[in-house]
């Protein structure tokens, strides 16, 4: 391995970003991106816990075909709130606002994000949105589904639609500001020598994510605003009784909410690129293809919203165009999967917990992505839309994809973030439990879906029970698996082994400074002279014999 150049202070110092200042005020008014990342980490964990309790209630209710655990009105609120909390307050901010906030400046060799005050503001906006949403839940909840379809949401629902909408509306601005901050930071604050093609792929995927956040989020804000206008002021926009068009809402909603899926999964893909390369000590195979496929996903992701409307009486020809584009957007994802797999060829693979999550991601994301093709395929979607097949598919993407990446990343960077090691044995054990529990929960739902079990059903025909029993059993294993890291992460903050600056022996910039890093990240500004994932000197680069002369170095 090449000698790694560290940017540690000349005299070792015990001062880092965590103990640089004390007191509540030093946290609540901090402008340090690392501290703000921790504020986010605490708040999204809180929301994840609430969303998880709702998930548990859903699975308990569906254990039996009769609606016997919850009343139908309660059940409708529970699945609605599960979706709203998990999507808007956990998944969308999860990786960008915690790992991204912490690592984007560190990976490019910057002292902070471009706009530290805006970064803090975005957390407060998130918190305000969260508090308003929690108020709506406590005041009586909302029962429209996280999709808020009109005219049910504007005219017929007797629940706290406007308050919840307000929470989501406000929360959106925190996304926009985070995206803005990342784009400006990546453009302007890279360390000398950190060229675009030396950026870790984590940065590329956050760049692509930020584009979606800035371009897509205003649309959901407008949509929620229009919904509130109609609900409060009875301005006819969506309700046909007032002269509106209910399908228009679905176009607007999915114009944001489909790209929002990529807000959740692109950062996770960035994490997985880091995990695969670093835990196999290998440069990513086809770096530029992986980088540009993120941008391709971000761009094409805006053109496929109509595949949510194949059964709404949308024009058959529009359906065909959206189906074609949906198949097209699957290709960049496939390219990523192939390149990650090829990276492992003739590498040196360690079985540390983060790598287990990285490998798990590839398997689960492959299933999630391929089952997406069923739903992009028009004729099969007609049968499958609004069934449990859809539920299983998007959980494979959002939990199997986004959440696995988040957990993998959290383990990987935990030594840097906290300065402590997590217990490796427990880490591997829980990764395995989560993988098994997840698959047992959601694989049976594909079958139940094709058999015709509709989603959002409080009670269901008895022939579907076997699948629901399997799901509920899986969910309890999954929930148990999630509790283990929750416990040992907290435990490790005090009792974990102290982490060295570079416990994994990696070349990335974030590992060339102490753990936890000082407030200014690097004692001196790093000068980058190496490529991304450069474990060995470039002259050793091997050309795969079989493909001989056609191979080019990228």
């Amino acid at each position, binding site marked *: *391995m090449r000698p790694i150049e560290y940017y540690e202070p000349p005299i070792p110092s015990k001062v880092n970003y965590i103990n640089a200042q004390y007191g509540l005020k030093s946290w609540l008014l901090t402008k340090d991106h690392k501290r703000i990342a921790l504020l986010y980490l605490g708040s999204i964990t809180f929301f994840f816990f609430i969303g998880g309790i709702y998930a548990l209630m859903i699975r308990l209710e569906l254990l039996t075909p009769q*609606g016997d655990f919850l009343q139908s*009105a309660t059940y*409708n609120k529970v699945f609605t709130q599960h979706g709203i909390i998990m999507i808007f307050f956990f998944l969308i901010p999860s990786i960008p606002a915690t790992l991204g906030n912490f690592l984007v400046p560190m990976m490019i060799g910057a002292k902070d994000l471009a706009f530290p005050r805006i970064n803090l503001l975005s957390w407060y906006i998130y918190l305000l949105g969260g508090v308003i949403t929690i108020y709506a839940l406590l005041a009586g909840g909302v*029962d429209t589904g996280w*999709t808020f*379809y009109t*005219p049910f949401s504007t*005219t*017929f629902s007797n629940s706290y639609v406007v308050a919840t909408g307000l929470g989501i509306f406000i929360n959106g601005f925190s996304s926009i500001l985070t995206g803005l901050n990342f784009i400006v930071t990546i453009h302007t604050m890279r360390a000398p020598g950190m060229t675009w093609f030396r950026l870790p792929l984590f940065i590329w995927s956050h760049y692509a994510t930020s584009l979606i956040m800035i371009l897509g989020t205003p649309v959901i804000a407008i949509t929620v605003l229009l919904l509130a206008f109609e609900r409060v002021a009875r301005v006819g926009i969506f309700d046909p009784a007032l002269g509106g068009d*209910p399908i228009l809402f679905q176009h607007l909603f999915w114009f944001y909410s489909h790209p929002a899926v990529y807000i959740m999964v692109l950062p996770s893909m960035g994490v997985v690129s880091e995990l695969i390369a670093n835990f196999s000590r290998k440069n990513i*195979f086809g770096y*530029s293809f992986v980088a540009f496929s993120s941008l391709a996903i971000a761009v094409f992701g805006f053109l496929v919203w109509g595949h949510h409307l194949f*059964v709404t*009486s949308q024009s*058959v020809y529009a359906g065909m165009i959206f*189906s074609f584009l949906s*198949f097209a957007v*699957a290709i960049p994802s*496939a*390219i990523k*999967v192939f*390149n990650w797999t090829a990276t492992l*060829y*003739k*590498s*040196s*693979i*360690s079985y540390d917990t983060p790598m287990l999550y990285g490998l798990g991601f*590839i*398997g689960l994301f*492959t299933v999630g992505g*391929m089952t997406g*093709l*069923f739903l*992009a*395929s*028009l*004729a099969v*979607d*007609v*049968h499958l*839309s609004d069934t449990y097949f859809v539920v299983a598919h998007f959980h494979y993407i959002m939990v199997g994809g986004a959440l696995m990446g988040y957990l993998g990343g959290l383990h990987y960077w935990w030594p840097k973030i906290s300065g402590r090691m997590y217990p490796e044995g427990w880490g591997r054990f829980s990764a395995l439990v989560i993988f098994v529990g997840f698959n047992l929960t959601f694989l049976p739902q594909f*079958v139940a879906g094709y058999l*015709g079990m*509709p989603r*959002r059903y409080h*009670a*269901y*025909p008895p022939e579907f029970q*076997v699948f629901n029993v399997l799901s509920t059993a899986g969910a309890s294993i999954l929930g148990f698996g999630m509790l283990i890291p929750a416990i040992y992460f907290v435990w490790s903050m005090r009792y974990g082994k102290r982490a060295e600056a570079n416990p994994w022996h990696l070349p990335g910039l974030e590992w060339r400074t102490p753990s936890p890093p000082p407030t200014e990240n690097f004692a001196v500004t790093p000068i980058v002279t190496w490529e991304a994932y450069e*474990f*060995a000197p*470039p002259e050793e*680069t091997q050309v*795969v014999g079989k*493909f001989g002369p056609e*191979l*080019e*170095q990228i």
Partner: protein
Amino acid sequence: MQSWIPLVPDSASTLSWKVDALYFYLSGVTLFFSLLISAVLIFFVIRYRRRTPYEIPRPIAGSHKLETLWTIIPFVIAMTMFGWGAQVYFQQYKPPANAIEVYVVGKQWMWKLQHATGQREINQLHIPVGRKIKLIMTSEDVIHDFFVPAFRTKMDVVPGKYTTMWFEATTPGTYHLFCAEYCGMNHSGMTGSIIVMEPREFDNWLSGNAGSGTPASQGQQLFQSLGCASCHGQNGEGGRGPTLAGIYGQKTQLQTGESVSVDDSYVRESILNPQAKLVAGFGAIMPTFQGQVSEDQLLQLLAYIKSLAGGQTQAPATAGTPAATNARPAGSPTQNLK
């Protein structure tokens, strides 16, 4: 559902095996690639496990040839899925000629159906095998969705407009009808059954369940009682208002110079919002009937106007079978639907 854990639902329409065939193709490709990726991953993970803590593998440059290969192959496979799916989708949603029409109104939380011959049903639909059935659907409140897994088809039922779907059942039996679009509190109770019968049985059922007149004849009565006849003529021949006889399915000239084809949605719009698309030569004198006619009545008026087009089998003259009032059990919920 023969096996202990079935993998496909009952298959009971002319289209269901076509959807199943595509589904099996997709499943096959998915299984193949998921297993391939997993197998390669597991092989690499074992074969290239780290043997000594300080080993550094030689870096490998990427390969444009491989990248091209694994861009083109998935794209070609994806396009076969796209083409196949689009072809079957066309068949699913292309309205067939000479189908039996059934009117469907969804409301929180029940399905109201009326056959062209007048029979009304709630949460049940009796149909014969071997005949194409076309549903003309709308909703009184929120969006619902008419989903019959055994027929592999569904369509949203949207307030304020008519959507259509069709199927041709192949196997007698009783099949699930689900509302597949979340519609509020009792969404999961908005279910019913599709009862597919042999044609002769179906004819027996029809004659034993004659309704209170066909939709067209009920539409004709409404046409009189709502005062439509005073402007559009006793038999829709026109007057102060444009003629309605023979107009359905044709094109008509608007005041703006545009022409519009007279279909379900145009008729609906002209009743609820008459000023929107005025026929050339007529003034804006018709009042709106928004809020005065129910969705059921709108469908009946539509059926009447269709019957005036000629060539339709549902002429109002055949309306009102004698058994009309007796057929429906007393206290039937149809009475209290609104």
